[in-house]
């Protein structure tokens, strides 16, 4: 069973993703801020990470960079989700190494497709 780590500070979205991803057969872990994300990733070694760009005390990009720096998690593929529509954000996200990028709110089918792409890219 593949393990997905979700880094998202909004508890309701986190819960929705938990139900959705578990119903699809994934094992799901959660982190609500940047620091938690890194320790969790190192401890549980997920197969991929979904990162919300807007996080308290640090942002999604920083999480992505630290993940790639740490030897235990440097090969773990990741994707971003965001409610922001700022110009150039998608391009920036891909430059940082994201394998996919979704705007909130997302279609369930788009989420599933993105996850499959990212896991396939490992």
């Amino acid at each position, binding site marked *: 069973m593949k393990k997905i780590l979700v880094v998202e500070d909004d508890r*309701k*979205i986190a819960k929705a993703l938990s*139900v959705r991803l578990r119903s699809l057969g994934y094992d799901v872990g959660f982190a609500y801020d940047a620091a938690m994300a890194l320790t969790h990733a190192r401890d549980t070694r997920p197969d991929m990470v979904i990162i919300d760009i*807007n996080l308290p005390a640090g942002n999604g990009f920083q999480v992505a960079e630290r993940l790639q720096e740490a030897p235990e998690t440097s090969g773990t593929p990741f994707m971003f989700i965001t409610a*922001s529509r700022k*110009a150039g954000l998608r391009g920036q996200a891909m430059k940082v190494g994201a394998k996919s990028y979704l705007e909130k*709110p997302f*279609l*369930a089918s788009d989420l599933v497709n993105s996850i499959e792409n990212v896991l396939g890219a490992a």
Partner: protein
Amino acid sequence: MLTRQPDFVDSVLDLMTLKILIIDDNEMDRLVYRRCLSMHETRVFSIEEASSAQEGLVLYNNEQYDCVLLDFHLGNCTGIDVLDQIVEHNPLSRPAIVMLTGFGTIDGAADAMKRGADDYIQKSTVSVESLGRAIANAVEKTALRRTVSSKQQYLQIANEQLTKQNEEIKRFYHSVSHELKTPLTSLREFVSMVHEGVAGETTEDQHDLLTTALESCDQLCTHLNDLTDSVSLETGAFRLELDRIDPAEVLDKSVRQFEPLFESADVSFSHQVEQGLPLMQADEARVVQVISILLANARKFTPAGGSVLLKSERTGPDGNAIRFSVADTGCGIEAEHLNLVFDRLYQVSKEDEWGCRAREGLGLGLSIAKQIMLQHGGELVVQSVPGEGSEFSFTVPVSDYLANVA
């Protein structure tokens, strides 16, 4: 002839006493100027004298003068040095400066003018009339200069405030949009999961109700995005992220998204893609957005039983563009509205025998779509026959990349 500015000049002329500082190392010359000025018909001059540059600068620093008469040759330094010091010390509110030149120093006079002197007068041509006139002109010129400079400062401050306000508006809309989208995300996810049976099988009725709920979620999301995009376009923050994009994929995405929506509206939806279309230079998400706007409109204004066709084909001289079109058999657009539909917030609102819905949406869609197309270097146009239908179409340039030969 320069037009007079009301404020400063009129008040000066009203006072009629102009404070003059004469800096000239020749005692006779100073006497001549004093005499000329004292004999002036209409104006009264209050005069102070300095016989050297140093003395002149001391007086200048201690008093406010309306005009400085400055000799070119001041013994051990030139009038230009004094001129430079005065101009540098107080570029915006300095007094008028008239240079007094001896015979054969025309070049020097031109140089002085460039460095900020308001006028020059050859000593040999000094008279009651000519000296008075030179001073009056210089004073008027100075008054104008001060008015212009203070207006410039005012405009700069106003501009800075507007820029700041613009930034605040942008931030506000981004923040509001973000805050609204967060609960909307979990809302959509939960409704969607029940709809799909993740929480257990649903009855047909439950499924239908939830389908409508989901449509509302998506409409809400579109409205929020339209609002953000509109503000983004308005404040100049909008940017395209261009890449080489496959038009067939773009069409595919739009079809998948709208097939269920047309089905629920009982409108027949079909699509045509020309074979072998080359890649286009575009922002994929934005082109999908434009097609969505057109398809949503087509759905809104086409009654049940009607049809909508989405097409993609090559076009333009040398086939250098891709044309997308959305044609519907809806109520059409009256000729007088045709030019106005792309205006921001313009909405056609009618209830007619074909049962077209009266009002839905923010009215921003087409103006956003048009702007997106303009930024792509293409255009968005419409043709329509009231009662028969409309066709909206736009073109996107083909990617120039050399390896991409269709």
